[in-house]
């Protein structure tokens, strides 16, 4: 019986099939790995966001505590309670250095005329 020329797969073809199969398997694995990585990174991002939010809240709480401690009433009460003998300096106890005054500039233009003019 005469053998058909294409009846048997050539090693080269088998090789290509195996390579293709391997590539497909690797692509599949890569896809799964990527999906897993996305999931893991998502969880890490969420955790970091939660941690950041927590730290931000702690920071805010400290800022509020600091503000409460710096309030004039609180400082006044604390200075009295601790009996440190602190008092406000008298004007003659203050040494003044000549410094440029940084006050808001007052424009020369008036914002309104006399209300009597507008009424008439």
């Amino acid at each position, binding site marked *: 019986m005469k053998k058909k020329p294409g009846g048997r797969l050539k090693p080269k073809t088998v090789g290509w099939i195996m390579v293709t199969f391997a590539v497909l398997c690797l692509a599949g694995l890569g896809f799964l790995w990527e999906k897993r990585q996305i999931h893991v990174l998502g969880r890490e991002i969420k955790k970091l966001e939660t941690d950041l939010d927590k730290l931000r809240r702690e920071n805010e709480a400290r800022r*509020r505590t600091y503000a409460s401690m710096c*309030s004039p009433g609180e400082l006044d009460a604390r200075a009295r309670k601790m009996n440190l003998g602190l008092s406000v300096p008298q004007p003659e106890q203050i040494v003044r250095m000549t410094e440029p005054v940084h006050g808001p500039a007052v*424009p020369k233009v008036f914002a309104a005329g006399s209300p009597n003019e507008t009424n008439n």
Partner: protein
Amino acid sequence: MARVKKITEKPLAASQYRWLACMTFCVICGFGYLVYTLLNLQVLRHKEFSEAARNNTERTFFRQPGRGDIRDRNGHLLATSKQVETVCADPKLIGTNYMRVAYQLAPVLGMSAAELGEKLRPRWIEDKDGNWIEVQYAVLKRKVESEEWENVKAAMAALDFGVDETKLTQKQRAVYHRVRQKGVFTTPDQIRFYPNESLAAHVIGFVGMQERTTPRGKVLETRGQDGLELTMDSVLTGVHGWRLTETDGLRREVVAFREQDVAPRPGLNVVLTLDASIQHIVETEVAAAHAKHSPISTACLVVRPKTGEILAMANLPNFNPNLLEEGNADARRNRLIADISEPGSTFKAMVISGAFNDGTVNLNDPFFCENGRFRYGGLPLSDHHPYGTLTVEGIIVKSSNIGAAKIGIKMGQERLYEVIRDFGFGSKTGIPLPGERSGIVWPVHKWRKPSITRIPMGHEVASTPLQTVMAMAAIANGGTLMKPMLIDRFVDEAGQTVADFHPTPVRRVISEEAARKMVTALKSAVATEGTGTKARLTYYTVAGKTGTAQKIINKQYSHEKHFVSFIGFFPADNPELCIAVFMDEPKRGMYAGETAAPVFAKIGERAANYLAIAPEKKPEKTALAVNGRTNN
């Protein structure tokens, strides 16, 4: 080829053909059904199912913007926001265990079990398409602090369902576990926090909650209700952000499916011209005076005359904006801008300055004060003491009503009216606070004949304390009326200035010469035998005027009830501060010189020390050791 031949050689039996046809039909039907189902799912009911799928997993989370802070001129926090939680529950998940959860959480949340049970009870609602859906979201309590939420979580973890869970199947145990873990959850929220409590409460105001409908749903927002929180609301409120994402069955966000993530833009910080330290000085002194004289109310204002900057604004009774429910509405009123009354004798300073400006009178012009009894337009007018002839300066120093009336007559109705309006009476000052009133100044055609004798002494006109202070500050400022300035600048989160505000001169009311003459007279009112001698300061020359206005009770001037005030400024010839003290019906002490003037002195001394205003007068000891050196 040989095989094909073999098949064709042996034709199928008829039964086989039938079987094959039947199978083919079944396969075609099966595939047809599949195609129909596919079409139904993907084409015909695509919108419905995709929406249902989206509703199951997709979630939009609103991201609240931080409300801007309110700070004083030195950066001290006056109002800020605090992150808190809104405790919510899933009634569908909790199911029939709702009363157990209610009893467990009631003591932790400080609510009654019945109220909580009602919120947790499973219920159904009809959506916009007429479908009945089981409620999965119920708000249990808003504004819960983090510590309280930790207690709620601990209470839920220890929840006892009254069954022996060891005998349950794994699936049944998982249900109870989910109720404990996911039955109660939180959404982020914020509250306003005022670190200085009642300090400058009338200026800062307070906030409340308001619901707003947005294209992405309803949002509960913190909005200003009074004070700067209200007028600066659009500046302080930022812009909402949102996050469009998906959640899993345990309400956890699947970050990979986060589609949109728009960060909120926080509100701007508002920096005031107020100085928290001066505000504290003012409030402590006002509180002491309030306790001493027991008036209905005491108020004080500290202004820089040259710029119109308000450094302190205090009212008593006051309130703590952190504990709004404890105060009453009356205590929340800013009397310095919302109450009007006859200004009394302080008004003489404005009227007589107008006369100086026109050259109608001069400091040393004599006026006969009718020995304390004067009749004009059929009505009598009297002074507290019978005075003969007084100079214009003497009229200010002694606060003679008859003298002021005669100057008013000399000015004439039209000019008197013009001067009053030019000083800002009868118009709002434009301070950025809600509830400001414009006062009452009747037009000349509505005046009665005696009005010209009453108005110069501060009767028949009504003004807010702020108007009177700004008018006095105009005299201190060489005759230029300034707009009261309360906002210094807007600053963003990074500390960059977004908007800067400058002092605004409103108009020139009187000439510098006229202002100088009035300052001379006002200095005498404090320095000599005037009514304001108790307002003197050790290191500074004070110019000021007392005002003791009789209150109108049952359409008559009361002899017992007075509205007293002292408005002064120092150093008189180069004023740094204008301080005004007002008391409504002081019970102990009737005159402003006894009640308001000493408060001015105490505030003035402390504020000048704090601001290190260069002393004007030389102290008795000229040499004083400072840091090992002498200050000569």
